[in-house]
């Protein structure tokens, strides 16, 4: 073989390698590939139109299993200055799969990213500055992920209750600012709140839902768990669910209420400092007003029988010890 031919072959190989390298996903910049999802056939993928039915619901889990390097997008309508809690969980946790979450506003500008290590759940807060549609992109990270696993994304509205300075019987006005009540349209029939009640131990919270007259709703309180699909896909089925705290169904225009005692240990349900409140439209459509009442409960008494029984048995032992000799003398 002559030298020139050898050079040609080497050049050809080099160029083909270059082409392969530039076109292969692993070689490409991750951000660039993400951007291409938007500028590319993004709108076709989601079939965006003005019909809000394509919007993802707050509080509902969405599950998917993505090949490495692939992504999916969920579209949410979010209200300005509300805090939302983003929860990505699933089988991929504690494995070598790596999912990341990116949030884009309606202009496709990246606002926030959740980029934990492989095998770690993504959990975080997001507070939009404006009302509008937001795009949540979930990516099976091509650079760091090594397998294909299932994952579930849920976005809750997050409310943190702080300790009131004065006692009790508080309405949402003092907690959330100017609104005396909370009003929201229900999308896709279910709305989920993640309520953080860490500062309210030993208190009873009652949520009252008042729908407009053409709407029938159901409310359910669950203990928060990352495995949201467990809560939702077997939802509001009070008998067998191990995390349900309370639920109530109403007819059209009828008020419903659920309550929860923070920090209470009872026989059937565990407590947590975070609970999920699902509100579901059963029939019709309309608006919903939710009020919250917080009262102090006397649950310290619950521990009293336990400590009392232990104390009583210790006292009996002490008595037996002290009157040992008299006990021996009894015929």
């Amino acid at each position, binding site marked *: 073989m002559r030298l020139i031919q050898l050079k040609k072959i080497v050049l050809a190989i080099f160029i083909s390698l270059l082409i392969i390298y530039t076109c292969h996903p692993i070689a490409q910049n991750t951000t660039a590939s993400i951007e291409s999802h938007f500028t590319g056939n993004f709108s076709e993928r989601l079939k965006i139109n003005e019909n809000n039915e394509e919007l993802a619901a707050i509080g509902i889990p969405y599950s998917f299993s993505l090949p490495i390097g692939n992504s999916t997008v969920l579209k949410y309508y979010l209200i300005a200055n509300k805090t939302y809690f983003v929860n990505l969980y699933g089988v991929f946790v504690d494995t070598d799969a790596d999912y990341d979450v990116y949030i884009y506003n309606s202009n496709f500008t990246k606002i926030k990213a959740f980029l934990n290590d492989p095998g770690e759940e993504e959990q975080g807060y997001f507070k939009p500055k404006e009302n509008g549609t937001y795009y949540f992109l979930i990516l099976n990270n091509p650079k760091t992920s090594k397998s294909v696993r299932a994952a579930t994304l849920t976005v809750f509205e997050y409310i943190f209750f702080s300790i009131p300075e004065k006692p009790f019987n508080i309405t949402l006005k003092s907690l959330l600012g100017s609104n005396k009540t909370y009003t929201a349209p229900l999308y896709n029939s279910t709305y989920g709140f993640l309520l953080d009640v860490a500062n309210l131990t030993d208190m009873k919270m009652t949520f009252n839902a008042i729908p407009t007259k053409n709407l029938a709703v159901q409310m359910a309180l669950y203990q928060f768990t990352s495995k949201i699909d467990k809560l939702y896909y077997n939802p509001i089925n009070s008998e067998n669910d191990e995390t349900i705290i309370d639920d109530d169904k109403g007819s059209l225009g009828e008020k419903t209420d659920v309550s929860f005692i923070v920090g209470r240990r009872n026989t059937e349900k565990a407590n947590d400092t975070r609970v999920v409140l699902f509100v579901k439209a059963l029939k019709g459509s309309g608006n919903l007003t939710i009020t919250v009442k917080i009262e102090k409960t006397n649950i310290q008494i619950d521990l009293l029988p336990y400590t009392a029984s232990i104390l009583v048995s210790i006292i009996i032992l002490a008595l037996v010890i002290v009157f040992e*000799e*008299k006990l*021996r*003398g009894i*015929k």
Partner: protein
Amino acid sequence: MHSSSTSYLIETFGLTKFFGEQCVVHNLNLQVPSGTIFGFLGPNGAGKSTTIKLILDLLRPTFGKIKIFGLDSILYHREIMTRIGYQPEKPILYENLNAFSFLKYMARLYGFSPKDAYERAKNALEFVNLGRKAFTVIKNLSAGQKQRLALAQAIINDPELLILDEPTSNLDPLGRIEIMDKIKELVKEKNMTVFISSHILPEIERVCDYVAVINNGRLVLQGKISDLVKNVKDTLYMLTVSDPGILKPELEKLEYVKEITLQDNTFYISIDIDNVELLWKDVPKLVSSLNLVLREFKSVRSPLEKSFLDALGVKDVGGHIIL
């Protein structure tokens, strides 16, 4: 609490114990004076050990009451036990410990500080001549050594009342004498009251001032030894000669002789205690006049033994008393 106001250290009032339907101790009224060595005698199975266990509250009486140092033995058990030392009838020891550790443990159980316990253990071991065996594991000690260790354990707290249940049963004759002498020493030095239960009469006679005899659960005799022997009238002598056949009729002629038994070529002669001198004069005279050889001539029955047998209602036919 001193018991100088009561003259009796141990008092039982109608003490009765039933095991099921069997009455093992019946209506016992024992009185052990303070500052004495008190012997508690009786044949095997008479109820001696049971009585001791009742006194120590190891058993509960079916009826009756016991007072020790003037205190109820059940209600003031711990207070009483502080002032008592007890040696059980067979040595009860922690076999896996060495002698010294065992005694220290016992001393600590009386509430002595570690330092005091150390001193007491050392002194107790020396008292019973086990100093050289201090660090020998108890299971490797001989039976006699274990018995002595058990005694050491009983005296470790310098008790006011020492209760010994058959303290010499496992000892050789020399050991027995040694122990009894030690007990006498204890009483003199420390003004201890000692309550000894035994079936070996000569030993009791040697050391004790007071004695009580129990038979079939009942108290048959109780009192000062010197008082008891005063009432004994008879005594028994044994005589061995070369040709007993010749001597017998001559002996029978002696007026003061109450009874003569010939057993295995040995005469057992029962006489009044006042006539002992006469017997000592006449027997050698008779033997020499008949040209016989005198092999053995001695008293076989001490006055206490005699009174013991009388109390038990047992006929004295010579020979040793085996209880």
